[in-house]
């Protein structure tokens, strides 16, 4: 353990030298990481608080829905928000320089019954959250009783029930309600999120300015025009949401004054008065300082979360929109670099206040208890294409090194003119081993964004939403995680004539499907009868068309039900062009409207196809029937074939081998072909992504054995990475070969993003040489048009030891995929997936 200190090795940028080394593979296991005592104190305090579930938001929303049943859905939603913000209990803890809560105490999950409620009640009764293996939450007897008391009202009124009622059997069978070929459960059970408020606009106008805008629009409406009547509902709801937000800030101001009056510690009393002044001012006015901007930024984001239940509500380009305040404060002598650094670090810790209760199935593949997805983007080019790096770019990275927590999810944008100093800083932070930050390639992301129809300026100004996704901040509603689609299942059905491998009475659909002699998918031929590999490709293409049709139909039903039942008047204030159009963001009010489902298992499809192509159609060593039987029997009795498929005697993706890489490209392109450009219910189009985040684990649990050498329940390949099965890692030629393979995919075409995970041993990236190797590797990957990378710097031995002695590794943070969290808090399937990823070295 060590205490961090500022070392003057090079000229500080912000407050730290750009080349400061914080340790290699140390992760979060460092006591007092910050040079600021307040930050270390607050960190310790927050970490010690247990996770709970809170009833208050649910009760207040229910009360408002009951009271305003006669109102339109958007007015009802606004009244619900007002009731919450006006009446929910609020608190301020010592050392909070920035205040605000998600309508619940610190680390307490509010409940959102308007989206889904059945699972909450079921789990509360039958699968208690404090008895989970991980992702535990405590719920008090009182909270449980109050939540139970809401059951009758919400029965039949939730978004989930409305979606479920509209889905046909064909649309259900591929989802979590069927056999899990694709998962749409994020927006089936919860809010959308995956967006960013327009902070620049908010900082320019303040809530008062937004109110004036709306009143202007209201005044111009023609009450005789039907569309204006609808707009009036929107504007009136938006005004209610604004009034509620102002009130929420004023309540914190009043509380801060009340606490200050009783406070004996002079320094904390002074801070409380500053909190009060700050909240009072930004309750109505544009911020005048970094601190005021930060307070408004935090509260504005928090209210989006309170309203929408969506995660991945992201922060956008923090170093860009905060920089004018930073410069002005320094010039005026209001703040120092150090005081601003401290504020940023406190703001990071404040994000630990937020948490989201997820159902017991979701947490197997999405463990961690974080709110999820609060990405913060720094670096990159500006709207004119020039390098946008500034002091704050570095200070954000330092703030992570000084806090070593899982939030925010920092993304650094690289481009061809990124300063060497920023690359050094970025990879020194990466080498700490917390999995932060992720790095993005402007040279790929900007053209990709352009291909989707965003303007050049908006494309250059992109930020990252959630785990992976490119987004035009403040003007887009991207539905970025609309579905996770398992391409490896499509291959399975293409090889097995539309029938699931392992079909049997254990399947929940058996009575309606297998027992009737039916198949889950159209008949497209069997590998046992195919005579050419082209027939495999054709069958795959037909199955892909069929399943993407089902998926899109299901997503559109979800979209329409969210529009109908859960408008978002507050979020609409912060997304262009909702106010101008007078249309809610959920109904297409945003400037850009996309829908982004992701393909999972590109490596699994590539290796499965390569094995068949090579062994069945070219070398003819095994028959198609041999492969089908082997998979049906989970490779039991087929050990020779299992060993061969998992050996380097067969072509595998990830080794710079064109044979397999071309098949990975086919898989990726084929998904994009069937998804891209389809219209959505908000007037926008579909944008395909190719990444799994951690859904490869969930989808693997739902899949039988597969021809790439996977056994039943093993994860499919993660993101755009190679296959690793329980038998072996299929990439054996090192990181450069992997980079070359993956960069043969068309990342520009995957407009909703791609993700490549890397896992290095600490030894392999230590020293200046290790750091420079890492930088060179990513330079090569990006020069070859790779889009995005994330890193683990950790050894297999450490992971094994952490599993054996979890108490010694409570602060060991790892990169799962898209997000970082505590390794010992992960589900076992996730822990093993991470363990199984290929350990790379130079």
């Amino acid at each position, binding site marked *: 353990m060590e205490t961090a200190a500022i070392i003057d090795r090079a000229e500080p940028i912000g407050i730290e030298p750009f080349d400061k080394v914080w340790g290699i593979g140390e992760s979060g296991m460092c006591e007092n990481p910050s040079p600021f005592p307040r930050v270390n104190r607050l960190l310790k305090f927050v970490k010690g608080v247990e996770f709970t579930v809170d009833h208050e938001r649910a009760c207040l929303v229910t009360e408002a829905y009951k009271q305003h049943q006669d109102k339109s859905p958007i007015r009802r939603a606004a009244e619900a928000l007002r009731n919450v913000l006006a009446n929910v209990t609020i608190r301020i803890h010592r050392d909070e320089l920035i205040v605000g809560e998600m309508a619940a105490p610190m680390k307490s999950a509010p409940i959102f019954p308007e989206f889904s409620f059945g699972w909450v009640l079921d789990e509360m009764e*039958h*699968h208690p959250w404090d*008895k*989970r*293996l991980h992702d535990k939450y405590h719920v008090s007897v009182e909270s449980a009783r109050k939540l139970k008391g809401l059951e009758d009202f919400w029965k039949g009124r939730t978004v989930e029930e409305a979606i479920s009622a509209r889905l046909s059997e064909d649309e259900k069978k591929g989802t979590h309600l069927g056999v899990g070929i694709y998962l749409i459960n994020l927006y089936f059970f919860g809010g959308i999120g995956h967006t960013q408020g327009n902070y620049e606009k908010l900082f320019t106008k303040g809530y008062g300015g937004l109110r004036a805008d709306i009143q202007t629009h209201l005044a111009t409406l023609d009450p005789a025009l039907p569309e204006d009547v609808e707009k009036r509902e929107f504007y009136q709801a938006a005004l209610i949401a604004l009034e509620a937000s102002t009130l929420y800030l004023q309540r914190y101001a009043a509380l801060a004054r009340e606490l200050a009056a009783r406070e004996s510690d002079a320094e904390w009393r002074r801070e409380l008065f500053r909190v009060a002044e700050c909240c009072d001012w930004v309750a109505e006015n544009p911020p005048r300082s970094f601190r005021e901007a930060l307070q408004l930024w935090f509260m504005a984001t928090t209210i989006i979360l309170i309203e929408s239940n969506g995660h991945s509500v992201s922060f956008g380009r923090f170093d860009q929109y905060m920089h004018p305040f930073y410069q002005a404060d320094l010039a005026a002598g209001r703040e120092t670099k150090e005081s601003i650094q401290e504020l940023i670090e406190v703001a990071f810790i404040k994000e630990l206040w937020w948490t989201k209760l997820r159902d*017991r199935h979701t947490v*197997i593949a999405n463990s961690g208890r974080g709110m999820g997805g609060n990405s913060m983007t720094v670096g990159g080019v500006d709207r004119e294409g020039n390098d946008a790096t500034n002091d704050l770019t570095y200070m954000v990275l330092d703030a992570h090194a000084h806090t070593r927590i899982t939030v925010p999810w920092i993304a650094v944008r690289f481009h061809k003119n990124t300063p060497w100093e920023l690359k050094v800083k970025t990879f020194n932070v990466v080498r700490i081993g917390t999995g932060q930050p992720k790095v993005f390639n402007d040279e790929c992301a900007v053209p990709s964004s352009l291909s989707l129809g965003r303007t050049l300026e908006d494309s250059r100004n992109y930020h990252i939403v959630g785990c992976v996704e490119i987004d035009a901040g403040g003007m887009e509603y991207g539905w970025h995680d609309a579905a996770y689609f398992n391409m490896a299942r499509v291959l399975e059905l293409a090889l097995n004539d539309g029938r699931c491998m*392992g079909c*049997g*009475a*254990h*399947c*929940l659909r058996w009575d309606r499907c297998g027992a009737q002699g039916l198949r889950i998918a159209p008949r497209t031929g069997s590998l046992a009868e195919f005579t050419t590999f082209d027939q495999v490709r054709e069958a795959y293409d037909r199955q892909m068309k069929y399943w993407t049709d089902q998926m899109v139909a299901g997503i559109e039903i979800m979209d329409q039900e969210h529009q109908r039942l859960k408008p978002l008047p507050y979020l609409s204030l912060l997304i262009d062009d909702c106010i101008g159009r007078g249309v809610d963001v959920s109904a297409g009010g945003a400037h850009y409207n996309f829908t982004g489902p992701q393909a999972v298992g590109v490596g699994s499809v590539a290796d499965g196809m390569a094995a068949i192509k090579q062994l069945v159609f070219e070398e003819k060593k095994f028959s198609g029937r041999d492969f089908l039987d082997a998979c*049906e*029997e*989970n490779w*039991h009795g087929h050990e020779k074939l299992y060993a061969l498929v998992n050996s380097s005697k067969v072509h595998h993706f990830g080794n710079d081998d064109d044979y397999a890489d071309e098949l990975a490209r086919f898989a990726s392109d084929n998904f994009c072909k069937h998804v891209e450009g389809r219209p959505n219910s908000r007037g926008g189009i579909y944008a395909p992504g190719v990444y799994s985040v951690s859904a490869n684990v969930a989808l693997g*649990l739902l899949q039988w054995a597969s021809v790439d050498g996977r056994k*039943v*329940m093993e994860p499919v390949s993660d993101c755009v990475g190679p296959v690793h099965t329980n038998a072996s890692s299929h990439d054996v030629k090192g990181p450069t070969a992997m980079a070359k393979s993956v960069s043969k995919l068309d990342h520009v075409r995957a407009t909703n993003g791609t993700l490549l995970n890397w896992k290095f041993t600490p030894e392999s990236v230590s020293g200046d040489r290790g750091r420079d190797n890492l930088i060179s590797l990513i330079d090569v990957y990006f020069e070859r048009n790779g889009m995005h990378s994330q890193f683990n710097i950790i050894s297999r031995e450490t992971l094994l030891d952490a599993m054996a002695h979890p108490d010694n590794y409570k602060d060991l943070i790892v990169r799962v995929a898209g997000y970082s969290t505590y390794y010992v808090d992960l*589900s*076992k*399937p996730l*822990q*093993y997936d991470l363990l199984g990823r290929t350990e790379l070295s130079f």
Partner: protein
Amino acid sequence: MKFQLLLYILAWKLKRVAKKDPRFRHFIESKKLALAIRAESSGKGRCFLFDNGRVSSTANLGAACACAMVWNDEATACSVMASSDDEAAVAALTEKKLKIEGSFKEFKWFSRALEIMQGKP
């Protein structure tokens, strides 16, 4: 001892539900399966026999089984089998504290039978 008792109770429950629950009876009516549950550490366990709607069991593990659920040790078996958390079994399989010998499909069938026995949809 606790492990064997747990298996005995499971066998009793299966027999009972086979007589009383039409849904369960329908599920097992045409099934022929011998499945063992045993602990590797002690070698003890029980064999469950499904024969066209009839359920029986024996502590004699000599019979040829199409599938065996092999637990590392009795304590793990007891804690997972008694858990209300479905994830416990997934975790045990992942950690290889539970291994499936023979047909995985028969293991899945047996798991589904247990779900129906518990009244799950």
